């Protein structure tokens, strides 16, 4: 965790696969990520449906294709906040912050570690079952979000092209 915290800025590309109970096939997408300490996260989806998601402190700004940006204050959406914190926390390497929102379980070695995050807030738990984060050294390999209804969002992260 402390080694994660030492990285001031990260850039990466991602490939994401979403599985929904309602859909007969998984949805694929690609894009890139920018993280800047302490709490700025940008997730830009390039394909197939352009979207820009910026989480800056307590604000979430979502810009879909040709629509005007939508600003969502995270404070008013505790469930959404828990999910964002689950992604941002490992990037920040802020274990204390993670422990405020989740039961944190660590396993593996420095070369191949996993963190399992289970939300503590019952309202958040109604939506989110757990978040799994895997990686090696100070690199995050993948983040897997499992919704309460079994839907799954799996993001694989690699070095920038």
């Amino acid at each position: 965790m402390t080694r994660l915290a030492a990285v001031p800025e990260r850039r990466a590309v991602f490939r994401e696969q979403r599985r929904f109970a309602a859909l007969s096939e998984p949805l694929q997408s690609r894009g890139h990520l920018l993280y800047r300490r302490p709490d700025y996260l940008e997730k830009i989806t390039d394909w197939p449906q352009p979207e820009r998601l910026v989480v800056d402190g307590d604000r979430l700004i979502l810009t879909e294709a040709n629509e005007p940006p939508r600003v969502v204050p995270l404070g008013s959406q505790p469930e959404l906040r828990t999910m964002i914190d689950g992604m941002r926390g490992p990037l920040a390497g802020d274990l204390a912050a993670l422990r405020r929102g989740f039961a944190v379980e660590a396993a593996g070695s420095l070369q191949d570690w996993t963190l399992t995050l289970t939300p503590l807030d019952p309202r958040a738990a109604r939506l989110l079952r757990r978040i799994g984060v895997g990686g090696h050294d100070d690199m995050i390999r993948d983040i897997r979000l499992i919704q309460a209804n079994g839907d799954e969002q799996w993001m694989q992260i690699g070095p920038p092209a």
Partner: protein
Amino acid sequence: MKPGALPHGPAADGARRRAWPVLLALAAAILILLAVLSRISVRTDMVEFLPAGQTAAARLVMDEARAGTATGLILVGLEGADPAELARISKAMAAALPATGLFQLVAGGEAALPPDALEQLFARRYLLAPAEFGVDALRAGMEGVLRQLRSSAAPLATQFGLADPPGAFLTLIRGWAGSSTVRSVDGAWFAAGHDRALLLARTRAGGMDVPAQETATGAIAAAFAAARPGPARLLVAGPAVFARDAARAIHADVQRISILSTLLIAALLWWRFRSPLVIAAIAAPVVLSVAVAAAAVQLGFGSVHGVALGFGATMLGVSVDYPVLMIGHRKRGEPAAATRARIGPAFILAVITATLGLGAMLFSGFPGLAQLGVFSAVGLATCALATWFGLPLLIVAANLAPVAAGDPAWLPRLERVRRWRWLGLVPVLAAAAYFAAIGGPHWEGDLANLSPVPAASRALDQALRAELGAPDAGQILLLRGPDAETVLQRQEALLPMLDRLRTEGVLAGADAAATLLPSQATQRARVAALPDPATLAARIEQARAGLPFRPEAFRGFAEAVAATRNLAPLRPEDLADTPVGARLDPLLTRRGAAWQGPIVLHGVTDAARLAAALGPGTADVTYIDMRGELGAILAGYTARAWRWLGCCGVLVVLVLGAGLRRPGMTARVLGAVLAAMLVTAALLTGAGVRLSLIHLVALQLVAGVGLDYALFFARRQLDAEERARTLRTLVTCNAMTLLTFGLLSVCDTPVLRDIGVTVAVGAVLAMGFAFFAAGQAPGEA
């Protein structure tokens, strides 16, 4: 002017002085006052003070303005600590307050609606919001859900979207979210610009139930203290808090004024007469007059407004003139009839004209002012009658007279000043020229500035309201009907036009009850238009073709539509005492036998086009620009007050002419009074004051005291000794008026402050002008 030595002679013989009648009279007057005060009911709210309206439309507006103040809305601000700490305190308060049972609603963060309220709305989405169920509409909705599943808003799609491809819930929730601009920090609402946490509470009790509001605001303060606030400060505002603040301010003002003005008058009279018996004799008619005046207002209006009581306390400063004039003019040892004969004509004229002068206030139609008018007129008349018939018996019994007497050397020197009385025209002409140059005095057009609520409280309320995104109802469309259903249907008939006006940029938005809760007719029509399960299933299959949704993906949607077919329409009463109902409440209310549903318009850019689109108003639909209407109502009352002022002025002139029987002297007396009023108005305007109905009324008081002065100066063929007595007595009267109304000018209650400043300034000017214009110049007979 120093009091002279005690004169010697038979009158100074102590053996003939009897004190007990004076003391007995005062004791009786005090007992009567206490008896009256224990029986009157004192009101301090704004509703009692404001007019009910003359025309039907005006009554409607005033009703709305009063009802706005009748809701127990409390705006809470927290500041003075770092945001995280403020958020913690805010959440602690929001958690503690509902448990008190005093509040219908406490909101301070989290989502606008709690989860169970959201579920309630979600279950009724096809009743409450429009939706289309054709194949094409369903296909478009499904594609939208798929896009949402690909996006970061995917959790919303699984939670709501799959069960609602037509998107009715989204439409519904946008309406309920309102136009708030608050941001959220750690789950607490914050003002957009700065670190101030915000909470909104609505009390179960009405806003004008002052004791209940005291309890509610007390509970808020207690919850704040229990949250260990440290350096943080608590701010509260809102109509309910206004009511409490106004009540407190008036209470404190009345108490302070009555105590201080009594002490000051007593001190002044002590300096002038050097006798506790004289003070007791003067106090008796004054105390009696306050008692009778309060009783008259109670009988006439059913209650006494605190402002009238506070004003009444200072009316002491005017009515006390009468006993002072009587005792001040008595020669020691003189029988009562002799004093009365010397001052009689001036005294009687002064009382009649002063009481007449208050008529404009009495008939202004403005309940608060009418109370002041009754209080003053009855008080003056009672005090004069008691002085005329009762006081001589007392003063002869106790042998009271001023300590200073004789024909002092300073009198001719002072009266020589009158040679330059034409100089008195200078300020009058200057005032007239000033008004001519600026085009007349500035008039107050905002009714709010006549309210008994302190300005600081109103400013805080404005600030918190703006930050919470709960703007004042400035422009509204008032719809009325015999029941809630009719009102909602009338709103629904108007909404398409308002939507069109919004797209044309005429207005930014409209809050209407019907967008939150459609009429039962609309809800029933929606149910009737729902497809039956088999039809819907077929359409879903058709719309789904070629999309990656599993067959069972929209089961929740089909079930919800089927369930809606059996739902009874939601009625306003079903929402009572819920957070959803609290949001609906101000937009749909029962008012007597009828129901009202104001459509609150935001950001109106083109009022003329809006009015044109609405066409001529009917009894059921009225377009109201609140500020403009209130201004018009106020102007109406001001015009009415002017008319009565004119009528009373004519009466006063007639009475003066008949009483004085000298046209020249009548002109000089009137001139002195008018000069004082004009210069006072000019001075106030020059100081940046916007003149209002209140100032107009205060100027009538100035006229009343000015007439006293001028009439006594105008008496004919007096020897130097009597002229000295008159001057001394009038200076005493003037000093008393100045002291008591000067006290009013430091009040927290705006109405009392305005009256105080005007009368204090006017009384001094009236004294000066009366001395110059109405008194005899040396050599003049």
